């Protein structure tokens, strides 16, 4: 267990008063910022980030150093940093944990990112449901400004920078980078067509570095210890640590910082301590609501981008939801699709129409009116959405259907023949209610 859990990003969590800037400073806070501003050129920070092989922790795993380089090299004078704290992926609560337990670290990380890409202003877009995180980050920004780490000529350098908090209003889609940018500009959160990507033309068409909270939180460590040391933990394809969020039918729920490379079995049975109430594990979903659903026979797969990719998996946001053997796969997939049908922004047809249609078909399985032909419809719908949807929401939302059809096909077949093994679906031809 000892080497299963590490404390790089979470080392202050629970050990300092999240309101108190002096607590943070006494624990070594702002050392990385001071080193960055006084001893490093922006390009050196980017070079160390590239050397660290850090990739985005929000789900897409894009190389962070490469993204920073694009923003740094973009010719505009006005550039922005956006910290994406619109953590809406169901089953994900790691960014909330980071913001509520160590908000100053996030503020420091954003300033380092701003210095590295030569931006003047940052926004942190926090989802509206996170009342406590919003209050703590606002407080941290004010205290940091009073101390002189934000504002004009920070540490007497020719570097002016400030951070503004913006809050979401209950739209899951705003976690998508361009939807978030549209929302910041005062519009409905609908993704834009790409390219150009945000590093070239983001907020108000200016070069914009947009990163997830956890991604940015790695920067102080990289600045202080270097990219090479960063890679001392993790695997060849996945360096550093990952925050995972354990929830569902599991004994030890919560956020845990783990090194890349441990197995899913370690996560479920050592860290998560297994399944409660003497039940057995039936399925886990990895990466959030649009993640793959896999059976216990696949628990030897490692939390590792390359190993997971071989199995068509991704760590995604770090959410890992366990389901015990009293749960019905069809019922779970139905609830996920209801969510996506509600959260689709409506801009592109594959997602706007595809998600409700997927829901309708899965609903037919759950009320006993599905036929064998529905398999063909599911196949064609999911492929259309994966290939033709505009953004990650519509491309990824079929994943629970695709993966359960691959690994839990017998449950679909049983529902076709009028039998819900968990006894949850009504199978009454849609008569109930």
């Amino acid at each position, binding site marked *: 267990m000892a080497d299963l859990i590490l404390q790089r990003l979470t080392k202050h969590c629970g050990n300092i008063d999240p309101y108190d800037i002096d607590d943070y400073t006494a624990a070594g806070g702002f050392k990385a910022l001071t080193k960055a501003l006084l001893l490093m050129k922006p390009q050196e920070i980017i070079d160390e980030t590239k050397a660290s092989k850090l990739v985005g922790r929000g789900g897409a795993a894009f190389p962070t150093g490469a993204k920073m380089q694009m923003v740094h090299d973009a010719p505009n004078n006005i550039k922005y940093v956006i910290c994406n704290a619109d*953590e*809406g*992926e*169901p*089953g*994900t*609560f790691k960014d*909330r944990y980071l913001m509520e337990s160590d908000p100053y670290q996030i503020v420091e990380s954003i300033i380092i990112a701003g210095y590295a890409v030569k931006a003047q202003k940052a926004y942190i877009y926090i*989802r*509206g*449901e*996170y*009342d*406590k995180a919003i209050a703590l980050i606002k407080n941290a920004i004010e205290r940091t400004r009073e101390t002189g780490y934000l504002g004009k000529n920070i540490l007497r350098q020719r570097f002016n920078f400030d951070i503004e908090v*913006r*809050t*979401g*209003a*209950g*739209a*899951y889609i705003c976690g998508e980078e361009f939807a978030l940018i549209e*929302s*910041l*500009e*005062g*519009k*409905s*959160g609908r993704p834009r067509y790409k390219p150009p990507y945000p590093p070239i033309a983001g907020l108000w068409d200016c070069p914009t570095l947009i990163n997830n909270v956890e991604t940015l939180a790695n920067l102080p460590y990289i600045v202080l210890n270097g990219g090479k040391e960063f890679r001392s933990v993790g695997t060849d394809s996945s360096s550093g640590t990952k925050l995972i*969020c*354990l*929830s*569902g*039918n599991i004994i030890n*729920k*919560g*956020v845990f910082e783990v090194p890349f490379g441990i197995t899913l079995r370690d996560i479920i049975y050592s860290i998560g301590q297994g399944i409660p109430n003497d039940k057995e594990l039936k399925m886990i*979903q990895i990466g959030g*609501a649009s993640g793959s659903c896999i059976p216990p026979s696949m628990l030897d797969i490692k939390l590792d981008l390359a190993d997971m990719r071989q199995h068509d998996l991704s760590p995604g946001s770090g*959410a890992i*939801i366990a*389901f*015990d053997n009293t*749960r019905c796969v069809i019922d*779970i997939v139905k*609830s*996920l699709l209801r*969510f996506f049908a509600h*959260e689709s*922004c409506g801009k592109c047809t594959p997602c706007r129409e595809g998600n409700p249609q997927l829901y309708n078909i899965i609903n037919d399985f759950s009320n006993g009116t599905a036929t064998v032909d529905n398999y063909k419809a599911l196949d064609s719908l999911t492929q259309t959405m994966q290939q033709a949807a505009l953004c990650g929401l519509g491309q990824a939302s079929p994943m629970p259907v695709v993966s359960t059809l691959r690994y839990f096909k017998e449950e679909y077949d049983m529902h076709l023949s009028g039998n819900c093994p968990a006894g949850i679906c009504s199978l009454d031809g849609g008569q109930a209610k």
Partner: protein
Amino acid sequence: MVEDIIMRHGATEDKLMPILLDIQNSNERHYLKEEDLKTVSKILGIPESRVYSVVTFYSFFSLKPRGKYIIQICDNAPCIVNGAYNVIDDFRRALGIDMGQTTNDGMFTLEHSSCLGCCSHAPAARIGGELYGDLNTDRINSILSELRRQ
């Protein structure tokens, strides 16, 4: 009052959401009135149609009066497998209303919510901007009577 809120934020297009959120929060019944939207549209120089489209896009905004306390119950998978449907039933029974409705005394509105990030204490709800986890029948009844007393 709406004018004050706008001036405090600054009358620029990008402040539309924070302005609307503040106006709604300052209303006891947590909703946006038609005349508020018209004022915002006029001062910010944004067409009424676009203000309306933003208001109807984000699920936090309401054009109908709601209760003093909005009870947002999470119904995502981690909460469902820990009893979210029972939580919904308990609230409906205790308040005598359905999801989306407001009690006659104007105290409570029941709403579905997306994941509240409270999965380690599922099932969870957000009530009046506060998170409540590990919900069960007893806890729900005591939360409601506590709020009624306030």
